[in-house]
């Protein structure tokens, strides 16, 4: 996993609530057996029409908007557990998603892949979206060490929460699997001590 420390970038606005994982990556694109290449089908049915032509009114097709940060409405990533959603967002080139809250499974999947979900208050989210509406070149800074999200236009600095363990993983590029493997003795001892009648 690539470590994440800090970035400053323009952002892509997606001011829609309850963006579900079927929109992020439709089920028909889940037939791949590797983790790569999902970015080209990110938001496929919002991005392209039936003839596979880009829909000009969708934000990813608007040349005014680009950047490493996706800023989206509340409850981003609801729906299925497909990790392909996090892979698609990352493969497309985003490193951070900002929302007022995330669906639990999506959030976990994002963190497990080094895609940083940043949860901010609805007011901070609204301000960020308004800032981009006024200036598509507006820049934002995400500092993981300090746990801050900064709107570089308004100067608003807001702290975001992240689990201490997950923060260490992201800063260093560690996977959970490395940690869990290091717990093998405790796991096997737990197995031996467990009453087995419920299994």
């Amino acid at each position, binding site marked *: 996993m690539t470590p994440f420390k800090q970035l400053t970038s323009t952002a892509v606005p997606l*001011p*829609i*609530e*309850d963006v*579900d994982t*079927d*929109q992020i990556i*439709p*089920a*028909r694109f*889940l*037939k*791949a*057996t*590797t*983790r790569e290449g999902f970015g080209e089908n990110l938001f496929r*049915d919002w991005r392209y029409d*039936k003839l596979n032509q880009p829909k000009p009114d969708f934000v990813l097709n608007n040349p005014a908007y680009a950047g490493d940060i996706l800023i989206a*409405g*509340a*409850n981003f990533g*609801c*729906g*299925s*557990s*497909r*990790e*392909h959603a*996090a892979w698609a967002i990352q493969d497309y080139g985003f490193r951070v998603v900002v929302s007022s*809250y995330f*669906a*639990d*499974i999506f959030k*976990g*999947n994002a963190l*497990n*892949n080094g895609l940083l979900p940043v949860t901010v208050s609805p007011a901070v989210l609204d301000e960020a979206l308004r800032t981009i509406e006024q200036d598509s070149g507006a820049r934002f800074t995400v500092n993981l060490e300090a746990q801050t999200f900064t709107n570089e236009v308004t100067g608003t600095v807001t702290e975001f929460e992240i*689990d*201490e*363990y*997950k*923060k260490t993983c992201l800063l260093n590029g560690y*996977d*959970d*699997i490395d*940690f*869990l*493997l290091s*717990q*093998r003795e*405790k*796991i096997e001892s*737990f*197995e031996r001590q*467990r*009453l087995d*009648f*419920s*299994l």
Partner: protein
Amino acid sequence: MPTLFDKVWDAHVVTSVPGGAQVLYIDRHLIHEVTSPQAFNGLRQRGIPLLRRDRIVATADHNVPTKDQDKPIAEPLSRKQVNMLTENCAEFGVELYGLGHPYQGIVHVIGPELGITRPGITMVCGDSHTSTHGAFGAIAFGIGTSQVEQVMATQCVLMEKPRKMRINIEGELQAGVTAKDLILYVIAQLGTGGGTGHFVEYAGSAIRNLSMEGRMTVCNMSIEMGARGGLIAPDQTTFDYLEGREFSPRGADWDEAVAHWRTLPTDADATFDTEYTYRAEDIPPMITYGTNPGMGMGVTDTIPEASALHGAASMEKAMNYMDLEIGQHMEGMPIDYVFIGSCTNSRIEDLRLAGSLVQGKRVAANVTGIVVPGSQQVAKQAIAEGLDRVFEAAGFEFRGAGCSACLGMNEDKVPAGRYCVSTSNRNFEGRQGPGARTILASPLTAAAAAVAGKIVDVRDI
């Protein structure tokens, strides 16, 4: 004092990590063809074996065709993915109930019917509807592929203990109102994010009176309100369902297991972070009007205005997609497709319910109807009871087991612009095929819509 959730969770904590996360031991791991290939690849790349291959069961469900299941899969990418599952299971020594096996079926249908699912255990699967198994008093939840790999390698996941919510449904459901209506009603109250960060216990007399099939339907859709999972205290209904199943404990082991399971229900003085109570009598037959499962209403209601749950932009987008209008009645609206199936409503009781309504009737000329049993065992039971003939005589197609038109990964899709009354769990844009318009409903409401050719109130039949 501990809740059911506390008792099961706390008994599975291997160790805690500074910062709040815990290493949670997983008793049972179900896998399928779509979310497992990258996990097997990861193990291979890292050179790690499975820690406990006897704790994993695999089946092919998401991609499989529901016609000609005895022939090779025609669609090349689906065939490749299903074949890869077969190869991976052979290489790693995992039990596979693949196509053609008498136990094959939707992963959340076969776990319970084989007695793999049981009270007091922890269970995961790379599928969000793993919450289904909570109906037995298990902690069951969906995970991503990275976690599938972690569980394969270590039999554990790393996560923070979710908060606790209890939803009480007291009283008696009206005639014609099912477990599906109950859960669609709750999700319409709380929205798709209302359960985020929580594990939900469903309680109250209306829940206790549900069959295991009904309880599975309720727990299945916990994820649709954003909850990590849902669970219901095990009781005599649970034990009666499990006794004698293929992998259920037997003899003295059974007695010991039941004695343990009886200790699991939430203590009387336990408290929850969040609690809601609803009256069963207030729940009508439900339908959805929009593009997420929280956009639901009573079948005779009119589509509501934008609200705190569904903002103006979301409602406008949903109405455009569905080609419906705020304030519109949907009762009486013509429909094109009816899908009876999915991990929400494809069990034998669901087919009996739908069958009772279509018996001796005909599917309307404007409707294409398919019935997809959840597993080979459900199909076999339905055929033994003559339900296949009831559906076929009415003009439905009766198919082989799989996830089918719930998510359209195989060829069972709803064409763009068409309305499908579906017993599945998600009405997201494009869920049943690009441009498809999904209306979620119970098996009774779906069967009634198939016969009438339009949306009807089953209480009038």
